[in-house]
């Protein structure tokens, strides 16, 4: 039994079910990120935790108290909104203490709490201003201050960084992480940005079409995606997916595909399970992250399963730290992540190193990973 329990929660609007039997337990101090494309139900779920949307069936419990039907203000939660939702007619100080005021906290205490939060977030000099006079980053801090001052059981963040420019977003991301580490608070955080999900979370729930596709630590999600959706959604550039034919020879399994010229490429699959072998002779999807497809020099030396294959380079995209190289395997475009100084040129063939230890295979029909 967790700190925040979501048990079999379902949400329907009329006859349309938008959230299907969600089960998540969040431990105290955990940083759970709900990630997924827009319309996947992540914000609905957050709003249900907040009490802003009714729960159609199932339960949500905070500290073992079922909060279905409990007013948002009685759940001891705080929320940071995408638009920050700062009250435009109040000063920053009033914004921060409004919640305390509504809960009947006496003025001196409110002032004290406000001062602490302002210090923590370094917004002391902004307290007398109106939200209209603040920059995006400042508004973001005020919004967090408003949440922090309540000392809630659970913090809810609804895409809090999506209105910031790229640089600020990275800074604020770090700041949020730091706050979480300092204060040890329990956080549920909604985003559509998989990098935010990866960097911030202790656990991620990837959602799509109202289902939780996979719940796990960032590493689990990244390395062992449960299905094709998770595989492609997480990671940038996204995972290369190559249609391969599974060939089983005695204990070993091979994924057969072609290079850019139609030449045969056979990649040994390491640690083939019985389940995998049952796909013998069938077409399956081979998933390989760009960083597992590199130039030879850049290949992971600890890996014993590096396969080298020649193929034509179509596009190179130097990104400073790395160079992304596009080529073709099995008729699909694949992106390889090479070292910045790798000697590759569009229109020339180059040698690609496949780190097969990192390869995952999916059933192309169900999209599920073959374990």
């Amino acid at each position, binding site marked *: *039994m967790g700190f925040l*329990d979501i048990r079999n929660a379902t949400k329907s609007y009329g006859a349309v079910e938008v959230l299907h039997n969600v089960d998540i337990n969040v431990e105290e101090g955990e940083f759970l990120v709900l990630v997924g494309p827009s319309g996947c139900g992540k914000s609905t779920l957050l709003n249900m935790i907040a009490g802003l949307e009714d729960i159609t069936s199932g*339960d949500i*419990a905070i500290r*073992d*108290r*079922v*909060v*279905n*039907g*409990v*007013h948002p203000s*009685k759940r001891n939660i705080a929320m940071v909104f995408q638009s920050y939702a700062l009250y435009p007619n109040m000063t920053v100080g009033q914004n921060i203490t409004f919640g305390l005021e509504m809960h009947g906290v006496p003025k001196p205490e409110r002032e004290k709490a406000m001062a602490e939060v302002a210090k923590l977030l370094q917004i002391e000099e902004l307290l007398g201003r109106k939200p209209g006079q603040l920059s995006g980053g400042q508004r973001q801090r005020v919004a967090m201050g408003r949440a922090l001052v309540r000392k809630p059981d659970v913090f809810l963040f609804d895409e809090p960084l999506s209105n910031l420019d790229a640089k600020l977003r990275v800074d604020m991301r770090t700041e949020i992480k730091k706050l979480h580490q300092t204060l040890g608070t329990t956080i549920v955080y909604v985003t559509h940005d998989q990098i935010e999900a990866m960097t911030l979370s202790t656990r991620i729930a990837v959602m799509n079409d109202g289902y939780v596709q996979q719940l796990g630590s960032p590493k689990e999600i990244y390395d062992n995606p449960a299905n094709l959706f998770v595989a492609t959604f997480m990671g940038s550039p996204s995972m290369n997916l190559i249609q391969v034919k599974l060939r089983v020879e005695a204990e070993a399994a091979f994924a057969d595909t072609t290079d850019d010229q139609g030449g045969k490429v056979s990649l040994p699959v390491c640690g083939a399970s019985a389940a995998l072998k049952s796909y013998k002779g069938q077409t399956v999807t081979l998933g390989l992250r760009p960083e597992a497809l590199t130039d030879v020099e850049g290949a992971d030396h600890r890996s014993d399963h590096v396969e080298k294959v020649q193929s034509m380079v179509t596009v190179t995209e130097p990104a400073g730290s790395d160079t992304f190289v596009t080529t073709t395997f099995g008729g699909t475009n694949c992106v390889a992540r090479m070292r910045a100084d790798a000697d590759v040129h569009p229109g020339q063939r180059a040698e690609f190193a496949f780190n097969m230890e990192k390869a995952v295979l999916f059933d192309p029909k169900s999209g599920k990973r073959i374990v």
Partner: protein
Amino acid sequence: MAARAEADLRTRLQNWIPKLVLSPSLAMIFVFVYGFILFTLYLSFTDSRMLPSFGWVGLENYSKLWRLSHWEISLTNMGIFAGLYIVVCTVIGLMLAIFLDQKIRGEGVLRPLYLYPMALSFIVTGTAWKWFLDPGIGLENTMHLWGWESFSFNWIKDRNYAIYCLVLAAVWQTSGFVMAMFLAGLRGIDNEILKAAQMDGASNWNLYRRIIIPQLRPAFLSAFVILAHLAIKTFDLVIALTGGGPGRATELPATFMYSYTFTRNQMGIGAASAVIMLMTIAAIMIPYLYAELRERK
């Protein structure tokens, strides 16, 4: 298993308060608007004359109504009046709004000048308008005094043209208001789009025709609703300017209804005409409301 917290009192109250807050307004609307409409519908089937009475006469009032050339005239007039009024107000309103939007010096003075007629009822301005339109003392006379002897403006006296005088005065009253609505719409348009279009080499004319005016759709719709509603309710204007004359040339359904219900003691026929008016309004407004409200959902 955790204790199940029942929806607390406050939460349940919070669910009811919005409906409670809305209910007095709804109750008032249902009684004073829809209740009265039903009452009027009922009256239209009765032999009510001076006061409501409840002798059922079926459709007699309707058949009488359609035999009255008076009623036909007021319907035709409504068509002419409403059509012209809405179109002219929209055109003038839009033109003034576009012109005022050209960084005009003195906009602050002009805007209230255009708007103020909306503040005045025709009980107030009726006499002035009557004078102004009267060839004997008004514009025509003034022009003659100023030396333009051949000037002629006697529409109000001509039963074929008097209805246009109503349009003129009505346009005077509301076109400024329409201007304000369009101006608000224009000010809401993103200037970057305009800059982009200018770089694309669009002439001012094309800019307005192809880019700006299409973006004013909401303003057009709001203007239409307000103008249609004012056109249908036009009553004071007719009473103040022409009294329905010359002859019956400027009777409108609202004056018809009033006259049959109150001055002619034929409340049944008055109610029948009201029902037909309401049905007409409904026929125009319900599709509009349906489209508008569904879209926004």
